[in-house]
């Protein structure tokens, strides 16, 4: 009887000791900062999306009016169409070239040459991304820039690349060509290096080589990396409006030729091209959020299915 009690007390004492309340002090800065600057804005965005707020204060609650208006807003649909094209085309071209580079480097037999070339491809990261855009605006696609000089040499008329429909569309997509500078190719390269050497040996013995090996063996085995860039590409791509903000704007005049949701939000809230409408702009943010979450969940479920099989 007495013994039982001590065991009970012992367990109780241990359980009490297991909780370390000092831990709350350790996580306090994170919790406080994120509550103010991440959680509150998140909740507030959803509230704003249902109001007609025009900058200061909440204005009136308008139910789903903002969303109904959005679905009838021609500009919004142009933005969605544009951002889908930019994201999908950008992701296909970018990943194709990046995998190509990783494959090329992977197949270089001289180790030191390969390592040296690798470092050189990373160099563009050292330049701030805004500056890279400015370089493309002022050196490559400027009125007497590289591309126009090539056009002149071929006897064609020079073009105001970033400022004329539909050339601005092409210029935005080709900015940063060949899209391999940076560190993404290292992640693919690491994926290739992680593949067991015996796989390649077996492929070689079976007479599978070159392009067929890449498609049938390499790509399936770096699926993890592909998926990572797919998710990151979609999430980043849907939000991106750097080029519009820094160089092109929404497209010449009011054509909205290259407008994207992110820039439309910026216009509605800050640029002065429209009356300030925080509520309406927040509704666009909510739509982008829903698309992103939907995509992530879809991807997650597909993953789970694959694991189950």
């Amino acid at each position: 009887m007495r013994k039982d009690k001590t065991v009970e007390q012992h367990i109780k004492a241990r359980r009490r000791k297991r909780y370390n309340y000092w831990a709350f002090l350790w996580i306090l800065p994170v919790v406080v900062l994120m509550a103010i600057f991440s959680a509150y804005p998140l909740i507030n965005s959803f509230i704003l999306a249902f109001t007609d707020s025009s900058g200061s204060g909440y204005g009136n609650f308008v139910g789903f009016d903002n969303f109904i208006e959005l679905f009838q807003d021609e500009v919004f649909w142009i933005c969605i169409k544009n951002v889908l094209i930019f994201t999908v085309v950008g992701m296909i071209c970018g990943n194709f070239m990046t995998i190509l580079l990783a494959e090329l480097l992977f197949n270089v037999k001289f180790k030191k040459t390969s390592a040296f070339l690798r470092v050189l491809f990373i160099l563009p990261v050292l330049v701030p991304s805004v500056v890279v855009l400015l370089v493309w605006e002022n050196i490559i696609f400027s009125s007497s820039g590289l591309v126009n000089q090539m056009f002149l040499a071929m006897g064609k008329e020079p073009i105001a690349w970033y400022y004329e429909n539909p050339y601005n569309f092409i210029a935005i997509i080709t900015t940063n060509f060949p899209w391999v500078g940076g560190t993404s190719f290292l992640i693919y390269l690491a994926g290739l290096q992680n593949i067991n050497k015996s796989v390649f040996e077996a492929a070689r013995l079976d007479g599978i080589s070159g392009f067929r090996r890449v498609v049938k063996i390499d790509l399936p085995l770096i699926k993890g990396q592909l998926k990572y860039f797919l998710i990151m590409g979609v999430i980043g791509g849907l939000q991106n409006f750097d080029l519009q903000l820094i160089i092109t704007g929404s497209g010449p005049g009011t054509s909205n030729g290259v407008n994207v949701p992110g820039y439309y939000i910026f216009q509605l809230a800050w640029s002065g091209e429209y009356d300030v409408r925080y509520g309406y702009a927040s509704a666009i943010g909510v739509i982008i959020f829903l698309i992103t979450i939907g995509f992530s969940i879809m991807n997650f479920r597909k993953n789970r299915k694959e694991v189950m099989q």
Partner: protein
Amino acid sequence: MKRQTHFFQRYLPQIVIILCIIILLVMTLFPLVLLVFNSFKLYTDDPLQWPSDSNGNMFTTEGYALVWDYIKGNYVNSLVITFAVSIGTTLFGSMAGYAFAKYDFPFKNAIFIAILAFMMVPGLLTLISRYSLIVNIGLNDNIWGVILPQISASLPFATFLTRTFFQGLPKEMFEAARMDGISESKKFYSLVLPLSKPIIITLLVQTFVSQWNDYLWSRLVLQSEDLQTLPVVLVNLTDTLGPISYCIPFAGYVLSAIPLIIIFIFGNKKFIEGMTSGAFKM
């Protein structure tokens, strides 16, 4: 003769591969080479023109002198903000990561998942609300209005990364420290931090690079010219000077790369780890 064909058969694929890589490399680096080249030219309307007496153009370092005079204040601003964000993120993130890895407390998993969930929230969704919050609490046009939200935005990833690392540290070591009666904060600073140097440096580099690149948020929050950050000033400078002579902004672009170049020279391995660390959170 036979030997020669053998040599070619053996090395031809390698030569082709390296040639392809070099073509890609030239296309990748050419814009940057042109940038540096033109930052030393008086007139830059033709980026390929080689300065000579006959075309009235010449090499000059005047662009650097002029632009440095103009941007030095903003350069310091950018450095201050970037250091504050990367140090704040790393310190607070690793503190929380440590607690989540080594302590037990009520609602531990719920809080951790709640923090991680913010990695899924697109910055675009909260952009307007964050801005009006900054205005409402009086941090508009104040560098803290940039620093605090940017720290908050990078904390989920920092917490996650450091927690994973701390979980890998041996338990016995902490037991020993506890038995020796070392206080919690001392344990963190004299035991945990030195051991976690690799992950701390990776995190510092990663947040430094991303904050140094930040344009949108700094542009929204900082309106006074003397508070603005470097990317914002460079964009404005390009717009105001127009296409007359670009050597001044071009020199500014080159100067803006210096901090990252320094980090890269002193620790390119850490730099690369910082830049690719995102891929391993999956």
